[in-house]
């Protein structure tokens, strides 16, 4: 069974492009050449059959195209008596194996000298092989805007001398964090319902694990994404948001949970205890029945110390409420200065509701509603407000809600 063309292209794009950039030393030239080679393949392969080594075929074809172009431009320049300073002619050796330089590529795309939105776009385009219009659609910006963003980023890589290499040891930590942050951001965009981005982030996460198998945080990120994503099918029901506790567990993707846990185990075996590993461990505990909230609260505590993030502390409050009751959770929440954060108010509302403090709960839900512009979240909060209006009419005591 031969993989369909699209799939081969998808699989090979990043590798072919990375190799070409390595050979040619020029992002744009490499991308044009790769695009040409893929177009030639799309025409030739269905007719002549897929070559035995598609990657080598694509890389060779692209390199030959680029060489032709460089020669043509040189000939033209000589003809017009221009000085030719550029002598990056690729060596015309016929090799069948090319080095895998995707890692160099990803570190270039995620270089901190590029704006974050450019890093994201460039990573999806170069490594992920998404077309400009696909990236534009995923991020809800006009295609022209996205195209300009990519052009500007590539221009800066060249003009500013952003290196095409894996950072040396003393920079690796910091630069790897930047790469992981880009993948995480892509995943988060997808978590809001744009499935293709979540799938893309997982694909990138897998590629990174393959390239950096000994980095626990890389595996931690992949584990976390797999575990969260395993619940994708149950997070919405007819377009309405469903909370974790109300989700139909039988529809969670058991295979993906197992894959996520396996990655987590490897990360832990590598001594990982970084933010992504901790988040993966928490996601793994969330998938257990019964859920070990005490352990989750501890892990959030550790994560909070690492990141100093009040959002993490808010999550800890939820776990604390499960262990020591809503009052204890509320005490944690009320120490946080996150007044413009909608989830602070929805969390407070939830805890107040459980304590039977209906009026305060309604006020908090209303505040959360003011702060969100997401349709599904608004409808969810409206539902809660309606339920509370009913229970205010007929007080039902301080029992746990749903």
């Amino acid at each position: 069974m031969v993989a369909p063309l699209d799939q081969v292209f998808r699989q090979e794009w990043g590798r072919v492009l990375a190799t070409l950039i390595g050979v040619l030393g020029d992002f744009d030239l490499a991308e044009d050449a790769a695009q040409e080679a893929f177009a030639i393949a799309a025409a030739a392969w269905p007719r002549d059959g897929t070559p035995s080594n598609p990657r080598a075929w694509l890389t060779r074809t692209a390199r030959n195209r680029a060489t032709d172009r460089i020669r043509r431009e040189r000939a033209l320049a000589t003809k017009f008596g221009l000085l030719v300073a550029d002598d990056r002619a690729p060596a015309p050796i016929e090799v069948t194996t090319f080095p895998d330089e995707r890692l160099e590529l990803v570190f270039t795309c995620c270089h901190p000298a590029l704006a974050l939105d450019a890093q994201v776009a460039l990573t999806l385009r170069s490594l992920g092989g998404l077309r400009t219009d696909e990236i534009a659609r995923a991020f809800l910006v006009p295609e022209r805007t996205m195209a300009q963003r990519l052009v500007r980023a590539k221009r800066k890589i060249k003009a500013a001398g952003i290196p095409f290499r894996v950072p040396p040891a003393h920079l690796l930590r910091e630069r790897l964090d930047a790469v992981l942050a880009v993948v995480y951001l892509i995943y988060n965009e997808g978590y809001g319902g744009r499935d293709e981005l979540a799938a893309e982030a997982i694909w990138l996460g897998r590629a990174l694990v393959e390239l950096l198998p000994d980095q626990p945080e890389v595996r931690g990120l992949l584990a976390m994404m797999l575990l969260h994503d395993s619940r994708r099918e149950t997070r919405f029901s007819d377009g309405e948001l469903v909370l974790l506790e109300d989700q139909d567990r039988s529809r969670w993707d058991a295979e993906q949970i197992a894959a996520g846990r396996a990655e987590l185990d490897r990360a832990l075996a590598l001594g990982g205890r970084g933010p992504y590993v901790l988040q993966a461990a928490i996601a793994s505990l969330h998938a257990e029945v019964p859920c070990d909230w005490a352990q989750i609260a501890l892990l959030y505590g550790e994560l909070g110390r690492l990141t100093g993030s009040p959002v993490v502390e808010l999550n800890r409050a939820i776990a604390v409420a499960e262990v020591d009751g809503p009052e204890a959770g509320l005490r944690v929440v009320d120490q946080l200065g996150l007044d413009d954060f909608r989830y602070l108010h929805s969390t407070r509302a939830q805890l107040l509701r459980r304590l039977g403090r209906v009026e305060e709960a309604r006020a908090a839900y209303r505040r959360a509603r003011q702060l969100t512009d997401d349709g599904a979240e608004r409808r969810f909060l409206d539902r809660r407000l309606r339920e509370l209006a009913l229970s205010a009419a007929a007080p039902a005591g301080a029992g746990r809600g749903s």
Partner: protein
Amino acid sequence: MKYVMLVYQAAAMERQAALTDEEQKRVRADYQGINETPGVTPGVPMGLPENATTVRVEGGRTLTTDGPFVGMKEAVGGWFILEADDLDAAIEVAARVPAARYGGAVEIRPSEVYW
């Protein structure tokens, strides 16, 4: 690659003035170290932006105003040329400039040949 390194003082001069003698010595030594770094061509030392004069020509008339083109706080405080392999190497040198750690900043501008 050739880079023009622009040093912005912002609050750095004031903060450095408040340092101990020992720390000030360190700052001077660090600037000396930058100047002696391979690839660095030191710029001519710049006077204070207060003493700058800005010139425009409008309709053939030369107009001068007191002070730097941008605000006093945003004015360039110094510069040097750096010949380095790539941006990462330039970032490492920039991070050693004392102004960068005392509230100022270093801007790395790749040099370009336009004609």
